């Protein structure tokens, strides 16, 4: 290729494996998954959708605190986590509760976290996750540090971290990618580009051709993937994980996706989105699309969907009950959680609350 003093970025096209009709259109990239694994991916997506619907209702009833809806993003969330080992680490952003629950965080703790109970974040031993990060982009750096830890201990594990298209504008995002490039770290940075940072559209987020292009400046691999296609997401993360485990460094994955609901429980999507746009994206619904594929293979039916929905509803009911009956945290307990040993001034402040 001829050299040029001007830097060019080529146009990128997202990796897709399934057509919206559920047909394999990219046999070459088809991941090697057993029938049971394919069914498990579907089960998890249906479960997550049902849990999301229930969580929105629970939020309206005042039984959950802050909750960020996930419907529409299941292929990215479920598919990416499914490509990891249990020993790999997950550093989520605020919307990424499904990934850490599928990675091992008990569901009732997710509910406790939403309700502001400290035990929500008391992750069980052996579950390699952090709780959702509220400061946009801060988790990118934690993942970078965790990845460096894996590398220093010669463990063949990877870290995955998530943010949104808005998060890719943060300084921490660039700093993290840059560190990962310099130290060649086994990290996977997933940007779930759902088109909006709360209400600000992607066109006002960056003038770059894509989020994936931002990998170029950091000297890491960058890929773009159809985030409504669970097989494509799985494949992209599997490839990235393999590179990480082989010492080939970090990958930035831009996943093009869409949230069917508002950013949180409060914003009005009609103020910033059109019905036409929502309609177009609903045609790409990851559950319908993957369901059609599985049905064509005789692996899934409406009865299976109904069964998983019932299972999810029962599970949510059980776990919200467990969250609601967990003893409330106390101010005294909170004070004692600030330091390993509670210093004298805090001991004295604690006396006012006992």
């Amino acid at each position, binding site marked *: 290729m001829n050299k040029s003093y001007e830097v060019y970025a080529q146009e990128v096209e997202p990796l897709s494996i399934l057509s919206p009709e559920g047909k394999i259109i990219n046999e070459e990239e088809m991941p090697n998954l057993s029938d049971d694994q394919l069914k498990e991916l579907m089960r998890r997506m249906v479960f997550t959708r049902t849990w999301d619907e229930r969580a929105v209702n629970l939020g309206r009833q005042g039984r959950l605190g802050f909750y960020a809806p996930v419907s529409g993003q299941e292929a990215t969330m479920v598919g990416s986590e499914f490509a990891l080992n249990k020993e790999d680490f997950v550093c989520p952003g605020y919307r990424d509760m499904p990934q850490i629950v599928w990675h091992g965080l008990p569901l009732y703790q997710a509910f406790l976290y939403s309700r502001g109970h400290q035990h*929500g974040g008391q992750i069980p031993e052996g579950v390699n996750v952090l709780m959702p990060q509220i400061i946009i982009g801060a988790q990118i750096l934690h*993942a970078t540090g965790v990845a*460096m*830890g894996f590398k*220093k201990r010669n463990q063949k594990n990877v870290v995955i971290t998530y943010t949104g298209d808005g998060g890719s504008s943060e300084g*921490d995002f660039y700093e993290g990618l840059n560190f990962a490039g310099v130290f060649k770290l086994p990290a996977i940075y997933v940007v779930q580009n759902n088109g909006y940072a709360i209400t600000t559209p992607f066109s006002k987020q960056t003038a770059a051709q894509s989020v994936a292009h931002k990998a170029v400046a950091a000297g890491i691999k960058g890929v773009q993937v159809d985030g409504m296609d669970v097989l494509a997401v799985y494949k992209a993360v599997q490839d990235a994980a393999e590179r990480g485990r082989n010492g080939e460094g970090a990958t930035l994955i831009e996943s093009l996706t869409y949230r069917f609901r508002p950013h949180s429980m409060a914003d009005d999507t009609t103020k910033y989105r059109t019905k036409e746009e929502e309609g177009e994206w609903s045609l790409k619904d990851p559950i319908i699309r993957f369901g059609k594929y599985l049905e064509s293979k005789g692996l899934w039916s409406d009865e299976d969907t109904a069964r998983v929905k019932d299972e999810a509803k029962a599970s949510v009911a059980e776990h919200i009950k467990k969250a609601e009956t967990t003893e409330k945290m106390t101010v005294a307990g909170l004070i004692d*959680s600030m330091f*390993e040993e509670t210093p004298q001034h*805090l001991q004295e402040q604690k006396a006012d609350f006992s």
Partner: protein
Amino acid sequence: MAQMNMKEAIRDGMRVELKRDPNVLLFGEDVGKVGGVFRATEGLQNEFSEDRVFDTPLAESAIGGLAVGLAVQGFRPIAEIQFVGFIYEALDQMAVQAARLRYRSGGRYNAPITFRTPFGGGVKAAELHTDALEGLLVQTPGIKVVVPSNPYDAKGLMISAIRDNDPVFFMEHLNLYHAFRSEVPEGEYTVPIGKANVVKEGSDVTIITYGMMVHTSLKAAEEIEKTKGVKVEVIDLRTLMPLDIDTIVESIKKTNRAIVVQEAQKTSGVAAEVIAQINEKAILHLEAPVLRVAPPDTVYPFAQIEDAWLPNPARIIDGLNKVLDF
């Protein structure tokens, strides 16, 4: 026993811990080959390899965030922020992420991180290289703040900071790095975090201070003792969070008068907190209001007028006279 200046003592403290515990890592901008812009880490990369002591890209937030991620993985990072004025870039990672990790995880994770930063005026450094920002950190729940004033304390406090299972913000006064040498034991010893030091005993008035101002206050004490015939007690706080209020109260009970001297701007800082706690615990022992001797609430005027802006012995003596003559 070896004679060391404060910089060498700090370096020796880090060396002791790097040697003792393979989980201790040291990183920041320029800390590796060259040993830091003040040479505080000189020789450590050579001794412990680039795997343990390493340069990072120039990005303060990432240095802080890297430390948090490594802490989650069981390491004990020593993260250097090259100059104090640059900590604003890293405040989210220090004051929000590291300081909240224990709370957020219900105790599952902790952040045994030592954030080191040079600070302190009187050296005619560039803008935003010397400001006293300890008050920002002291008001942050979950982080400890340490400011040594001499080589012995610096090494012992550094070892305590690295061994502490909570984040410690360790502030190294630029004016004290090379100011003087004193005896520092070789090998391991600790100076406890949260314990003040009565550096000079007296009976008539107490000066409560820390860092470089310990030395400025001692000068002032010596002068006023000559001219006025009073005995001044000087307390070096050594740790600003947690604050050793017991040592302060003991002193107030003896002297009944006090001033607080700090290099940071006057309002809402460490001195204000010390006085608030004296009010809560020892007001009936006071014969005069406790005064602050501190710079005005302006930006730090680097270089040209910093000597006039910073507390000096004359201003400290003025403060002492006010409480003595009240």
